[in-house]
């Protein structure tokens, strides 16, 4: 991929985040280009979701600048699709998945829905579901879907507004290895075919390594970014996590990281 031809959609300079007066992380200089697939990694409580909140305009940086699509972050930016971390789904509620997807475009409107608009929205929702191979879930109640199926619906809801950037917060949590890899492939397809940039928060780097263009690490109050080859080295990860981490190289140059799970749990 020729990165020079892609325009930057997120840039930050000396960006810092704080909760009340406590610094979460500081001096972050990151950039994200159109159509990039980026893994956002780091231990629990390191401030990964905080990064999302800044991008969504839900929190303000404590210092530094952050630009998204060459503007200050603002709430309700229609160019961003967002899938928050695990949501509570009421099992008594039998609302079909299609309705959740529809809310991605209609949920912020005032007034009643005219039948003409409603059928147009439904068609958009069905098209979006088709594009991620989830049409078979459309009429099933969301509360009866499996974890992986739910993530597809949330992804469709985030994609229906045709965003340029997707923020996915721990979509792989609670998925088994097969569903995990299915979802990553799906997200990767979205990146490649719909030219959407994706920031994906995850705990485990290994399933992401074959797909992501770059990785942003947040740990111990610092933010580092680079290609997997640059950043996934024993030395850098050990320094970031402040715990011994080993990076193994396979015969074809594949990378595997050992010790992160332990480091994450120790930070707890």
């Amino acid at each position, binding site marked *: 991929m020729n990165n020079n031809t892609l325009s930057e959609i997120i840039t930050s300079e000396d960006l810092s985040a704080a909760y009340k007066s406590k610094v979460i992380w500081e001096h972050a200089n990151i950039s994200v280009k159109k159509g990039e697939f980026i893994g956002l990694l780091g231990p629990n409580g390191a401030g990964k979701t905080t990064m999302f909140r800044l991008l969504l305009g839900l929190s303000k940086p404590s210092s530094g600048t952050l630009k998204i699509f060459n503007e200050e972050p603002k709430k309700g930016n229609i160019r*961003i699709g967002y899938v928050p971390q695990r949501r509570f789904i009421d099992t008594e509620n*039998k609302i079909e998945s299609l309705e959740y997807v529809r809310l991605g475009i209609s949920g912020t409107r005032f007034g009643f829905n005219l039948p003409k608009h409603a059928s147009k929205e439904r068609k958009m929702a069905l098209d979006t579901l088709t594009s991620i191979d989830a049409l078979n879930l459309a009429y099933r109640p969301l509360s009866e879907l499996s974890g992986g199926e739910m993530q597809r619906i949330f992804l469709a809801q985030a994609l229906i507004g045709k965003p340029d950037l997707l923020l996915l917060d721990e979509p792989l949590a609670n998925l088994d290895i097969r569903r995990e890899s299915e979802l990553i492939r799906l997200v990767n397809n979205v990146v490649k075919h719909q030219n959407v940039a994706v920031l994906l928060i995850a705990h485990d780097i290994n399933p992401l390594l074959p797909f992501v263009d770059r990785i942003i690490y947040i740990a111990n109050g610092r933010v580092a970014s680079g290609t997997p080859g640059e950043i996934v080295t024993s030395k850098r990860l050990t320094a970031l996590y402040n715990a011994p981490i080993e990076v193994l190289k396979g015969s074809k140059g594949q990378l595997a990281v050992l010790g992160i799970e332990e480091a994450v749990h120790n930070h707890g």
Partner: protein
Amino acid sequence: MVEFFATLNNSGFSYNLLSDLQNMWQYTFMQHALEVGTIVAVVAGIVGYFVVTRRLSFAAHALSHVGFAGAAGAVLIGVNPLTGLLVFTSAGGLAMAALGKRAASRDVQIGTVLAFMMGLGVLFINLYKGYATEAYSILFGEILGISKTDVLITLAMGLLILLIMAIVYRRLLFSSLDEDVSEAKGISVLGISILFMLLIAIATSIAVQVVGVLLIFALMVTPAAIAQRLAHKPSQGIIISVITALLATWFGLFMAFYIPYPVSFFITSSVFTVYILVRIFQSIGHSKTSIDESISVTS
């Protein structure tokens, strides 16, 4: 009122529904009851759907208890109890919403305030040295003693709720089903929860006339809980919830006219019966469909 009923000039069911209804309609108090009952059922059905979706049923229950103190206080100082209800429930609703989005789901805090408000209501009733019937009708509803003024207040409040609902419907739905995403999409979660708590407060106040403070669940929660289990679309859910509340209210009024039992008893027992039936049929149906899991995909 129950005794009064027995003395009415009606000879029980005539097996001619039309003449039965005509017979009922002769009485002004029955007209008022039907008018208020209908407005309340529609409003409670709609608001209730969101109460259940937002898991605020205990908060709604508590608000009606806050209203008890308001109604009893109003009786004490010689004001219309409905006014007292509206003032107290609105203040309570605003306080709950302002305490933060999570406050409305904290049982212990809400329960503590609820008990205090009921205690306050008991004191007011006691100070009034009036009739125990006042307390009784606030607690269990007194739809057959509704004045023309109350009908008009109920109508105005009902229309206000419907108007606000029509404007914010989709935003309210989005924030109810998917709070985090709706917030990121630019919906003010705090703003919408304050607004909705006010709507619950008003809906509860007018519904207390029909089923009373203690039985508010019957109109504000149970029909919506039935709807939630049956509906696959929010609009369907609201329709089912409204129809259930309407039928239960009309059924209650009709039955109470001919059988000297309280209206609220008939309303609560009919929605309860439907709820149980739905649960039973669903558990039977569920064990069936889980065997042949076929989902039709048609557009």
